[in-house]
């Protein structure tokens, strides 16, 4: 456990350059600077590793990097998505706090592969502690001559800067992030064109998640195959999971893909005494909820979670026991999307508010029998009809909560109060 991105977590001075280097850090980067590792070789290793983007969509990282027009003239950019805002997710924060050099090295390698000489790490505005750690790490890296122009006489150039957000979940969406980085409000762009063609400041840009970048140095140092073998087919390597909610020891765990959910639950100390599992949201608030029985049978990898009816997403496992009122839980999530929609697409702007208000009304004891059908219909009309996936993320929980816990909703509508004894 905690072998790659979180491997410094128990060390003294975990975020320092010295600690990082004693763990083999910057080995790959130095190899590159010595001209011993070609971009092609790196891409190949990443493909073998089966590293899929850790930000939620799970797009193969090597493939994404290969889309960059690396030989096209002009500025290109690498951007790290450290905007971590998906409810239930907080492992990027730990990577930034405890292992910032892995992100720096990962981004530098990416810059080298894609011939992008400038990188930005977009850190969510509230992450001040991680930001200061990253700034310190950057200073160390610059002082050690690992970043800059013509690094160690290699002709390789890479400058890296931190950027701070200011509170908007939507900026985690990669094109919203680019808008925000340009000093605008974070409204996602429609695609195509994709950032690899028209990205930051209109230039070719690749955006990856913090964990994706942080995984790269270790993969290249130990080999793609090594990494792939840690996981299961189609879900290579290890992945950080934030386990939160009704567990005894909520924490981040970097475990092999394919680990049974039940094992992960045990790692997190299991449920509190006398409690039974009701449901699990496996990939962050935007992914569908899975009822207990199904959850206990799934393993933590892309395919298995999909088979269980949800998505691995950002690897944010929200555990809900029998004390949880599912109506309240869904209402809270609906409020989140209502609050965070950027508002440009009609279905999302209007739909998130509509769904939240109906749920709120149910919570206020004013539910109507037709409300559930209405909610299902509204979420269905939002799905797949918008510029970015926030609307889908808002819709899917509604559908899954109602599907799996319908009787709780019906009870609430009928009785004006929660079915869960100690709630409401």
């Amino acid at each position, binding site marked *: 456990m905690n072998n790659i991105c979180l491997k410094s977590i128990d060390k003294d001075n975990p975020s320092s350059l010295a600690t990082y280097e004693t763990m083999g850090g910057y080995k790959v980067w130095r190899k590159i600077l010595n001209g011993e590792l070609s971009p092609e070789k790196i891409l190949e290793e990443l493909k073998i590793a089966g590293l899929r983007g850790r930000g939620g969509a799970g797009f193969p990282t090597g493939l994404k990097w290969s889309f960059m027009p690396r030989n096209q003239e002009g500025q290109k950019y690498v951007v790290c998505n450290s905007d971590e805002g998906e409810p239930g997710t907080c492992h990027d924060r730990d990577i930034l706090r405890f292992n910032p050099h892995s992100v720096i090295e990962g981004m530098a390698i990416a810059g080298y592969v894609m011939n992008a000489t400038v990188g930005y790490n977009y850190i969510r505005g509230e992450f001040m502690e991680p930001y200061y750690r990253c700034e310190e790490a950057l200073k160390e890296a610059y002082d050690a001559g690992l970043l800059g122009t013509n690094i160690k006489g290699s002709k390789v150039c890479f400058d890296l800067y931190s950027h701070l957000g200011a509170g908007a979940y939507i900026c985690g969406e990669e094109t919203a992030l680019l808008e925000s980085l340009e000093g605008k409000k974070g409204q996602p762009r429609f695609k195509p064109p994709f950032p690899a063609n028209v990205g930051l400041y209109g230039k070719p840009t690749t955006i990856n998640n913090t964990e994706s970048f942080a995984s790269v140095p270790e993969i290249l140092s130990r080999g793609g195959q090594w990494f792939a073998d840690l996981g299961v087919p189609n879900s290579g390597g290890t992945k950080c999971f934030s386990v939160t909610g*009704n567990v005894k020891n909520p924490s981040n765990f970097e475990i092999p893909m394919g680990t049974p959910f039940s094992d992960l639950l045990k790692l997190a100390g299991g449920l509190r005494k006398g409690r039974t599992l009701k449901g699990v949201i496996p990939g962050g608030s935007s992914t569908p909820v899975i009822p207990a029985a199904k959850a206990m049978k799934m393993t933590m990898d892309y395919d298995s979670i999909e088979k269980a009816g949800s998505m691995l997403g950002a690897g944010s496992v929200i555990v809900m026991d029998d004390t949880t009122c599912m109506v309240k839980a869904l209402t809270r999530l609906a409020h989140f999307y209502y609050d965070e929609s950027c508002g440009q697409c009609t279905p999302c702007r209007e739909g998130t508010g509509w769904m939240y208000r109906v749920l709120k009304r149910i919570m206020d004891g004013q539910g109507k029998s037709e409300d559930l059908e209405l909610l299902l219909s509204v979420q269905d009309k939002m799905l797949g009809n918008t510029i970015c996936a926030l609307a889908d993320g808002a819709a899917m929980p509604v559908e899954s909560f109602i599907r799996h816990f319908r009787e709780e909703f019906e009870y609430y509508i009928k009785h004006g109060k929660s079915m869960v004894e100690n709630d409401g």
Partner: protein
Amino acid sequence: MISDQAKKEIDIWVAKYPEGRQSSAVMQALTIVQKENGGSLTNELKQAVADYLEMPTISVEEVATFYENYNHKPVGKHVIRFCHNISCMLNGSDELISYLEEKLDVKTGEISKDRLVSVKRVECLGACVGAPMCQIGDQYYENLTKKRIDEILDGLK
């Protein structure tokens, strides 16, 4: 309108972006002037940031009203931003927020009578393994309990 010190800080950010892209620094510029102004923005400050970064004022206004971390009305000296999202909710954030409101005699969104604190409900702050949690200034406070809240409040001056 913008102090020399603030301008210096803004310039550090401006330097991170390519020539002519100084508007990339707008979010930080607003953060900096907001801090200097005791935690909230005014029309004059937004205008000043627009002028300083050579942006249309309405574009600054768009940014200032889009992001959660800008305040458009005065706030307490300390803003307690309490997460009420799912992981925190599952760990009792609602109860703690009520406790806080009672103890301070303020509602969320309001300022305490001594203007020392205001309380705000916010969405997930990305520290869910430490739920329930809140943010005051740059600092996160995790695994909160009533007792811990008492301590924290005692420490606020």
